[in-house]
């Protein structure tokens, strides 16, 4: 009997999968992704958006719910007092953060990748006549769909990091929504001389680059965008790790 990295991951999976809220939040995320994709695919006509972009139009909202999933997982350790039992069992502490991130990130990656493919399949089936149909073999379609899964997986990790960092569900969710949804809108209001160079590097804009086929002007290249977003996640994780290691539980 001893602590192993695999054991800590298994423990975090048990915590993750034994909460009803996990299944509800995950279900809502997939549902939003697919429902928005189907509705947008059926109703939009024009050539400014491709079939795969329409299929993924729910990804912005799905990012929020997936982030909430991670934030709740991280913050509930503190709001329930469970963190004391958790850290008494794993006194080196950091393995808890890594394992929690891994479990939430992988679960979101798998489920949301499947969701993205589902949205694309269903969206294509009901696609408006005014939009050109696309197949999985067409340029960039697979990248876009897998990119959505990767981005949403990373958003779940960002949620975990924020939850462990601020130790409050409401606080973590507010920061998450602020960063992902409100910040891009605020920056867009600034003069072009500021918003043009800064905008593409904002977390959600950078992340969007990897899950859109029709790139907006000035957007980062797809994998560059994902790498920039991953950079933000790493920074949030580092801050969470620092607080976890240095402060009283």
């Amino acid at each position, binding site marked *: *009997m001893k602590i192993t990295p695999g054991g800590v991951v298994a423990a975090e999976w048990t*915590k993750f999968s034994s909460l009803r809220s996990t299944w509800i939040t995950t279900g809502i995320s997939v549902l939003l992704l697919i429902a928005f994709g189907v509705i947008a695919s059926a109703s939009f006509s024009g050539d400014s958006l491709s079939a795969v972009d329409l299929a993924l139009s729910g990804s912005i909202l799905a990012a929020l719910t997936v982030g909430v999933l991670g934030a709740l997982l991280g913050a509930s350790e503190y709001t329930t007092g469970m963190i*004391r039992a958790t850290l008494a069992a794993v006194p*080196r502490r950091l393995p808890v953060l890594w394992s929690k991130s891994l479990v939430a990130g992988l679960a979101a990656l798998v489920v949301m990748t499947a969701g993205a493919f589902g949205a694309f399949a269903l969206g294509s089936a009901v696609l408006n006549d005014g939009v050109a149909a696309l197949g999985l073999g067409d340029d960039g379609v697979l990248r876009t769909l897998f990119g959505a899964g990767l981005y949403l997986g990373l958003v779940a990790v960002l949620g975990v990091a924020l939850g462990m960092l601020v130790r409050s569900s409401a606080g973590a969710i507010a920061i998450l929504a602020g960063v992902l949804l409100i910040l891009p809108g605020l920056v867009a209001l600034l003069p072009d001389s500021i918003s043009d160079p800064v905008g593409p590097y904002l977390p959600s804009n950078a992340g969007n680059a990897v899950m859109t086929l029709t790139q907006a002007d000035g957007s980062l290249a797809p994998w560059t965008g994902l790498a920039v977003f991953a950079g933000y996640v790493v920074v949030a994780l580092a801050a969470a790790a620092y607080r976890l290691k240095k402060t*009283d539980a």
Partner: protein
Amino acid sequence: MIQVRELTKRYGAKTVVDHLSFTAKPGQVTGFLGPNGAGKSTTMRMIVGLDAPNSGDVLVNGKPYASSKAPLHEIGVLLEAKAVHPGRTAVSHLLALARTHGIPRSRVDEVLALAGLTAVAHKRVGAFSLGMGQRLGIAAALLGDPAVVMLDEPVNGLDPEGVLWVRNLLAGLAAEGRTVMLSSHLMSEVSLVADHLVIVGRGKLLADTTVADFVTAEGVRVVTAAPDALRTAIAAAGVTVTSTGAEELFVTGRSAREIGLAAATRGIPLFELTPQNASLEEAFMDLTRHAVEYEASR
């Protein structure tokens, strides 16, 4: 074994634990006593590394806790706060803790049974009563078959049956050679189970003693059919016997056990044999009087 050495913890300007040193030894139940706010819970959190001391250190079984390869096997803890996600079932909660160490599922069922929680194992913890939550906490503490068991106010919220269960459990664990430490602010509760007492007030050590030494029993009240025969039976130097009623005696200098044995060998019937150690709680109050943090105004 828990060795606390010169442990000091400050929150802001307030020193909550002040150069505290004591040792809880294997095979003994150590009672950790002090009034509200004395720093008991804070000390216990520092023992398992949840709070970092400002100075001093703690060794659990001879080494710092965080360096252990199997922490749950070193020490099992119940901390005051109900440290469980209310949305999880009792089984899932214990299983999550067990998995960190590769503890098998069968052990989870074992501790659930031990704590009398088998019937509610698949209920969500949020629906548990205070006492059931406490039992779950004790089950979690025993999960890793630990050499040290440390419980913060374990009988809080337990019914009389539960209190008795905890008492027997702790005595049993100590008899197996484990180190047992429990905190309380009630002397009466601790004296029934503890061998060793560590008393703190305002974070400072007030006494590190045994129950036997601390308990200055005033005497034994005896009700018997033959008070005169009993007087003769137990008479010795240093023993005083006063008559307090027709069939009642008050004895000092002899333990209840000695009186009972003496009466039995001579066939003297006893109706009552009661150690009068009300002074226990009083002695504790005396000791901590000047170190009470939160006192009712009068």
